[in-house]
C-alpha cells in the first residue's frame, strides 16, 4: 500500500492548496486539472480592482488514496479569504458532478474537500451563490455512492455557504486550529454587537466553533494534529469506514431532541454544551 509519507512532520496548514492536495494523495499520483498554466481566471475581479489568480483559488487534483482513485478539491485560503466565485465554484461543482457521473457508472472516485474558506466571494455574489448550491446538490447525490470527506484545518476556517457544505460531508476532519461556523465571528460582532460575541476573544471563539469543540459535540468526526501524516491518515480512515448509516445532516430527530434540551434563558457556553450533548452519544 502506498501512503503519503513524503512529508512526515510537516504542518499541513503551512502548505499551499496545491501542496496540500499533493501531500494528501498517494506519492507520485497527483495530477492537476485546469492547472495554473491554463490561466482560467475569474473574469469578474479585474473590473472591480482585484487582481485575479491563475487558478482562481481552487486546485482540482486527481490521484489515488490507498491505491483507489480520488479527487481532491483544495481551496486556497490565502487568495481572497478562500472566497468562492464563479470559476472556483464551478471547479468544485464540476468535479463533484463528474465524480457522481462515474459513481453512477460503477466507477468510484473518492472525493475530498479541503475547506479553507470564508464562503461566497462577495465580488461575485449571486454567481457564487449559484455555484455553492450546485456544490451542495452534487454532494448530496454523491454521498449515497461514496463518502464525501471534508477537512477544516487552517486559520481561515470554514464559513458561509461552504460551512453548509461541511455540514453535508459524510465525515469532517478538523484540527484544533480549524473553525467551522455559518457566520464568522467578526461578522457576528458587526451585525449583533460585541455583547453578542467579542470576536477578539480568541479562547471564546475557539471554545464555540473550534475543532476540539466541534469534535466533542459530534459536529466533526476526527480531531487531528496539524500534520500532513495525521490528516492523510484520518482521511484514509474515513473512506475505510464507508458511508455512515445516517448522514449527520439527515439526523433530524436527534438534533431536534438536542435543541429541545436548550434553555435559552441560561448562559450556555462551549463546556456546558459539551456536558449536555455528550450524554446522547454526541462524540461519534
Amino acid at each position, binding site marked *: 500500500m502506498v501512503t503519503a509519507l513524503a512529508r512526515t512532520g510537516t504542518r499541513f496548514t503551512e502548505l499551499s492548496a496545491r501542496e496540500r492536495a499533493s501531500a494528501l494523495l498517494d506519492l507520485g499520483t497527483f495530477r492537476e*486539472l*485546469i492547472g495554473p498554466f*491554463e490561466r482560467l481566471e475569474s*473574469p*469578474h475581479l479585474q473590473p472591480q480592482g482585484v487582481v485575479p489568480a491563475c487558478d482562481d483559488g481552487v486546485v482540482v487534483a*486527481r490521484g489515488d488514496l490507498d491505491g483507489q482513485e480520488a479527487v481532491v478539491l483544495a481551496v486556497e485560503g490565502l487568495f481572497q479569504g478562500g472566497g468562492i466565485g*464563479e*470559476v472556483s*465554484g*464551478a*471547479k468544485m461543482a*464540476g*468535479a463533484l*458532478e463528474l465524480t457522481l457521473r462515474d459513481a453512477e457508472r460503477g466507477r468510484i472516485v473518492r472525493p475530498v474537500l479541503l475547506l479553507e474558506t470564508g464562503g461566497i466571494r*462577495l*465580488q*461575485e*455574489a*449571486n454567481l*457564487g*451563490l*449559484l*455555484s*455553492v*448550491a450546485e456544490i*451542495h*446538490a452534487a454532494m*448530496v*447525490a454523491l454521498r449515497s455512492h461514496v463518502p464525501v470527506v471534508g477537512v477544516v484545518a487552517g486559520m481561515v476556517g470554514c464559513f458561509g*455557504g461552504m460551512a*453548509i*457544505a*461541511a*455540514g*453535508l460531508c459524510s465525515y469532517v476532519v478538523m484540527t484544533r486550529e480549524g473553525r467551522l*461556523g455559518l*457566520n464568522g465571528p467578526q*461578522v*457576528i460582532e*458587526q*451585525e*449583533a454587537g460585541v455583547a*453578542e*460575541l467579542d470576536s477578539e476573544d480568541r479562547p471564546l471563539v475557539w471554545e*464555540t*466553533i473550534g475543532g476540539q469543540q466541534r469534535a466533542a*459535540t459530534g*459536529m466533526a468526526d476526527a480531531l487531528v494534529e496539524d500534520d500532513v501524516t495525521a490528516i492523510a491518515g484520518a482521511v484514509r480512515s474515513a473512506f475505510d469506514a464507508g458511508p455512515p448509516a445516517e*448522514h449527520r*445532516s*439527515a439526523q*433530524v430527530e436527534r*438534533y*431536534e431532541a438536542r*435543541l429541545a434540551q*436548550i434553555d*435559552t434563558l441560561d448562559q*450556555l*457556553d462551549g463546556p456546558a*454544551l459539551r456536558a449536555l450533548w455528550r450524554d446522547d452519544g454526541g462524540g461519534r
Partner: protein
Amino acid sequence: MSRGRVWFEALAGAIPDGEPASVLCADGTVRGGSARFLAVVPDPEATFPRARNGELGLEEGWALARRVRQAVAEDDGEQRALVAVVDVPGQPYGYREELLGVHLALAAAVDAYATARLAGHPVVALVVGQAISGAFLAHGMQADRILALYDSGVAVQVMSKRSTARVTRRSVEELDEIAKEVPATAYDIASFARLGALHRLIDGIDAAEPDAEDVEMVRDALAEAIYSARHDGSTDLSGRFASPEARQHRDASLQVRKRLAEEWSR
C-alpha cells in the same frame, strides 16, 4: 403580515399546524395535484431571540428538514410536489446559533430538499420577497424550478445590502454603482434573472397584497413548473444552464465544466 405568510395562506388554503410557529407547513393542491407548501415567517415569540424576524435559523432548518423528509417517507405512489414559498431575510447572526451548529441546521434543510428532488418529488421555489444568503440556499436553491415575482420588493443576494456595505467598507450608493456593471452583485430580481437560473419571472402581480386573480396566475405558473419538473426526466440542477441567459452570463461556469470533462480521465 409577512409576504411569506400572505402567499402561504393564499396558496395552501389550510391552517398550518405543528412546531415551531416560524415554519408554516400544510398540504394542499395545485390544479388537482397534491402539494406540500412550506414557508418561514417571523415569530416574535421564537425560542431563539436572534431568529424572531423571519431568519432561517436552528429550529427552522431542522423543522424544514423534518417536514420535507416526512413527505418523502410517506409518498410511495404519486410523489407530491414541494412548494417552498421564499421570503427569508437571511440567517440569524448569533453566538448561540454558532455554538449549536446553525451551519448544520441549514445543511439539514439543503439535504432534505435535495433528497426529495432526487427521489422524484417536483420541488418548486416561489420567491415572493427576500431570498438572502444561507437562508435561500437552505430554502429554495435546491429546487428543480425557481419562480419569482417581478416586483421591487423581491431580492436575491448573498448578504443584506446594509451588511455588505459594512463588510466591504463601501457605501450603499457605491454598491449600487458596482451593481450596474456587475449584475451578479445587484439585489433586484431582474438582475438575478439574467444569470439564467430562474424558470420564470412572473410579471403583473401585486406581490405584497395579491388579489384572487394574482393568486390564480401564480397557481397556473406553479402547476406548469410542477408539470415540467415531473416530466423532464432529470432530477439534478443542470436545467439552470439550459437558458440563453445562462449561456451568456455563466459562460465561465460552462467553460470550466467543459475543460474538467476533457481532462478528467487520462
